C-alpha cells in the first residue's frame, strides 16, 4: 500500500463482488491475485457474467488460475496498448450496470480508468486494488511527454531529458503523476537519484 499522501493521489481498495449481472475485470501481473482472492467470496455463477482481461507480467504467472475461474470471456493481452481498442469497444457497448474491477500496477489501473472515464463511467463506481510494482506513470509538465514505469526520485523525462521531481499530484484524465523540473532554479544542483517506487 502507498503511504499517506495528498488528496489528489489515488487511494486503492480491495476488490469485492458488486451486485449486478455484468462484470469486467482488467488486471495485469500480480493484479490477478486480487481477482483470485476475491473469487473465494463470490456468489455461485458470478463469473458466468464476467469478462476477465489480463496482461501477464514478465514471469507469465496466473494465467491458468484465472482461466480456472471460468469467466464467460477470457482475453490475454500482450500490453495495455494492444488491449486499448478492444477495451474501448467493450466499454462503449456496455449496458448500464456493468461493474468494473481494476487490479494490478498503478499504471494499469490509471490507464484503464482513463478509458472508462471517457466512456462515461464515474470513477467512484470502479473497484480498484493495487498489486505489484509501485512504478509510476509520469507526465512531464514541461514537454507533456509521458514516461512509463518511473521507479526513481527524481526521474529523467524520457522525452525532453529534464530531471523531474515526481510529485504525488495525480490526474485521472491523464492517468499520470506530475513531474516538475527539480533543479530549475539552479541546473548545477543535481540531487541524488533514489529508487523509491519499486
Amino acid at each position: 500500500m502507498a503511504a499517506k499522501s495528498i488528496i489528489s493521489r489515488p487511494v486503492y481498495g480491495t476488490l469485492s463482488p458488486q451486485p449486478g449481472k455484468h462484470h469486467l475485470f482488467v488486471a495485469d501481473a500480480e493484479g490477478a491475485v486480487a481477482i483470485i482472492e476475491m473469487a473465494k467470496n463470490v456468489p455461485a455463477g458470478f463469473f458466468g457474467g464476467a469478462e476477465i482481461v489480463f496482461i501477464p507480467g514478465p514471469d507469465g504467472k496466473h494465467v491458468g488460475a484465472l482461466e480456472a475461474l471460468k469467466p464467460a470471456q477470457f482475453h490475454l493481452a500482450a500490453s495495455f496498448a494492444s488491449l486499448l481498442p478492444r477495451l474501448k469497444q467493450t466499454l462503449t457497448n456496455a449496458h448500464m450496470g456493468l461493474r468494473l474491477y481494476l487490479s494490478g500496477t498503478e499504471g494499469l489501473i490509471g490507464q484503464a480508468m482513463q478509458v472508462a472515464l471517457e466512456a462515461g463511467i464515474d470513477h467512484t463506481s470502479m473497484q480498484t486494488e493495487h498489486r505489484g510494482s509501485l512504478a509510476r506513470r509520469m507526465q512531464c509538465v514541461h514537454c507533456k511527454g509521458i514516461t512509463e514505469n518511473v521507479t526513481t526520485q527524481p526521474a529523467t523525462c524520457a522525452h525532453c531529458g529534464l530531471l523531474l521531481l515526481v510529485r504525488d499530484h495525480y490526474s485521472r484524465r491523464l492517468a499520470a503523476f506530475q513531474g516538475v523540473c527539480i533543479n530549475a532554479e539552479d541546473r548545477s544542483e543535481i540531487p541524488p537519484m533514489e529508487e523509491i517506487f519499486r
Partner: protein
Amino acid sequence: MGITFRKETFRDDFTFRNSPEHIRRFPFPFHEDSYMYAVNIEPHVVGPKGSVLENLIDVDEHYVAEMQDRALVLAEDPLRCQSLPHMTLAGWDLLELLMEQQALGYPEHFTLTRDGDRWRWINRPLGIDDTFTFGDTSTLPYGPMEYITRQSQGDFCILDQRDGNLWMDAGMVTTQADWSLDFDIGMNFFEWHAPVPLAHEKGIFIRALKFLTNIQQGKPARRLNWTMTINPRLDTSPENYHKWGPDRSTVTPENVGDKVHLRVELQSFWRLPRSNGIVFPIRCYLIKMDELVTQPKWARRLHRVIRDLPEELATYKGLTRYRPTLVEWLSKLDDGSPTSPGFGPD
C-alpha cells in the same frame, strides 16, 4: 477621459511599470503585520472610486500589454486554454458577463449592443468590432470562452457544479502562479488544491467549497491571494518553470527593489445563469519593491509579514532562495513603528 494604456512587456526586457496612480490603487493584501491562511471571502461589491474595486471587472493601464502577452503564450502553448465538451454553454455565460461588465465600467473603450441574439461587440483598445450570433460558436473566430478571455485581464477558470463539488472543467490560464490547467483540468475542488500545504488540515477547503457552491446569481464574492515573482513576469507557469526558475537565483541586495515583485491575485466568484457553473477570474496585479515601498506603511508591514512567514508557506510560495536578501533590504525601511489597521496606504 479614458485609460492611457502603457506600452510595456512582461518578458525579455521587462518594461512593465505602475504609474503613481496605479501604485496607490494596488490591492495590498495584508490587513495586519502577519499572514496565515483564512477563508477570507467577502461579497464582491463595488468599492471606492480610484480603487481596483471601482468596477467589478477591473480594466487598467496594463490591459493592452497583458492581452499581447497572453497572445504570445497561447501561440507557444495552446493547451493553456482548454474547455471540456460540456462547458460551451458556460463559455457563453462568461462572454456575456465580461462584455456586460467591461462595457458598463468603461463605455469609452467597450460597447455592447444587442438585437435579440445578434450582438455587436466593439473593443476599441484592441481594435475589434465583431458582430455575431449569441449561442452560435461558428459566428466567432474562437470558442466563446477563448474569444472573450483573449480580451479580458486575468486568468479564468470555469467550474462545473455537480455531486456537491466544483470541477475545473474549462479555463484560460496564462498568468498563473505555478499551477497547470492542462494537468488539473477535470479535477474537483479538493483535488486541484491537493498540493497546497497546511490549508487542508485547517478545514479551509471544506468551508470554502460550502461557500462557493452556495453562491447566487448576481451576488459574486471575492478574496485576495498573494505570492512573489522575480521580474514582472505574468507567465510563471509550471510549463515554463525551467525557463523562469533561474530568475530566483539572480536577486542581490542591489537589485531587490527592481527585481522582486509582490504578486496579488484578486479572485472573484460568479454564478453563471444558464449553465449554473461558477466562473472564477484570477486577476493578477504586480508591483515591484521600489514602487511598493513608496508607501511607508506597506514597506513596514511587508517586512514583518515576510520575516515571520511560516517556513512551509515560504517554501510553497517559492521564496526560500531570496527571502533573507529581501528581508534584509526591507528591514532598513522598518523603523518598528506601528502600522495603521486595514489594507490601504496612509
